[in-house]
């Protein structure tokens, strides 16, 4: 299986923040969720992947080709959605579309109309009068209408209500039914990833902490609950994250078998991605 996107040893330094040796891959046919706290480096990474900002070192390969020297041909194959849309507020959506469309060799008017209809958007409406959800849908319609094989999105679901988010996730699932494609999207709404992501990349303070298949990541961890009197210092050390109250304890572990040997009566459940993320980056206390 080929990788749609490969980032190797990406470094970018700012005064107070830097990306350090950022490496990860997006395998073909996969939706990769890019997670991390605000300010962890998600947007900077995405901007560096797209060549919007420069980098000190590192290699970025898209569809097996280096970004440098292939920018024009690669960008034709990528659809991009940003959180803060780059639209001209005073234009109508149709006018905005006629500015964007010529930039792509494979612009498909029929696809565009299909998505506008699906999203119940009226092209004549002025962009400044759109709600946040409508703007995001419009951005998605533009990104999906030039036969893109890779979608890169920065927080596409942030600030949207659950219904619109779930609609957008369905569109992504639908988009992926065609082979050879990939979606890379950053989000801090982790529950979206439980539903749709195939792989997870976790970034913290500009470094990649995890790059893993989602289901494998969940399978490797458990939320373990039990009576606090069962805990001793050694078993406490087997948790990544542990909360204890007078009524019992609950914690995330990657060492279920060892814990179960020490405390046979514990209750073990599959955690969600948010539990795991917080266990790795800390609860910010």
């Amino acid at each position, binding site marked *: 299986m080929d990788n749609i996107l490969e980032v190797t040893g990406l470094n970018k330094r700012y005064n107070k923040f830097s990306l350090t040796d950022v490496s990860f891959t997006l*395998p073909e*046919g996969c939706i990769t969720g890019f997670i991390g706290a605000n300010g962890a480096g998600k947007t900077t990474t995405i901007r560096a992947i797209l060549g919007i900002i420069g980098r000190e070192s590192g290699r970025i390969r898209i569809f097996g080709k280096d970004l440098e020297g292939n920018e024009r041909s690669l960008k034709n194959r990528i659809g991009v959605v940003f959180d803060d849309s780059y639209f001209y507020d005073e234009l109508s959506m149709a006018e905005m579309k006629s500015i964007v469309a010529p930039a792509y060799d494979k612009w498909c008017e029929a696809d565009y109309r299909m998505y506008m209809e699906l999203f119940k958007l009226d092209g004549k409406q002025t962009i400044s009068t759109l709600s946040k959800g409508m703007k995001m849908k419009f951005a998605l319609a533009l990104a999906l209408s030039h036969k893109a094989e890779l979608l890169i999105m920065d927080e596409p679901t942030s600030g949207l209500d659950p219904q619109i988010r779930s609609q957008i996730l369905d569109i992504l699932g639908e988009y992926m*039914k065609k082979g050879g494609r990939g979606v890379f999207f950053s989000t801090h709404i982790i529950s979206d990833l439980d539903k749709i992501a195939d792989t997870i990349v976790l970034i913290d303070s500009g470094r990649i902490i995890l790059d893993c298949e989602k*289901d*494998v990541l969940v*399978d490797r961890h458990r939320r373990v609950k039990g009576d606090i009197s069962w805990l001793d210092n050694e078993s406490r050390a087997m948790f990544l994250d542990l909360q204890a109250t007078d009524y019992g304890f609950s914690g995330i572990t990657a060492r279920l078998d060892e814990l179960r040997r020490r405390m046979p009566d514990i*209750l*073990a*459940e*599959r955690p969600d991605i948010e539990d795991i993320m917080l266990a790795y980056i800390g609860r910010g206390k």
Partner: protein
Amino acid sequence: MKVIISNTSDQPLYQQIKEQMKEAIFSGELRDGDPVPSIRNFANDLKVSVLTIRRVYEELENEGFLSRQVGIGTFISTGNLELLRESKRRVVEQKMADMIKDAKALGIPQEELQEMMDILYGEE
């Protein structure tokens, strides 16, 4: 075919799905030549990763329960019946092992277990 994913099971996801597909094959619900869903569709419906479904299909193919035809699709295969019987036997053996463990824990001797088995087998 029903596939129910448990959040309290110790079994990895791919194994849970694989076992349930095998059960559907043993029970005759999935038959020789039936097409299986595309990886992406199945993953979307079960809300699991495509990589998990890919692993399920690969393992079932290696065990002889699926055959992949390039460009056409992937199909249930029950051609290797001996293999199937062997697997069925393994399922029962596994359950018997659990039962024997319980019996030992409760202090039920082998003869008594045997008697219980005879009675129940006759009743069915």
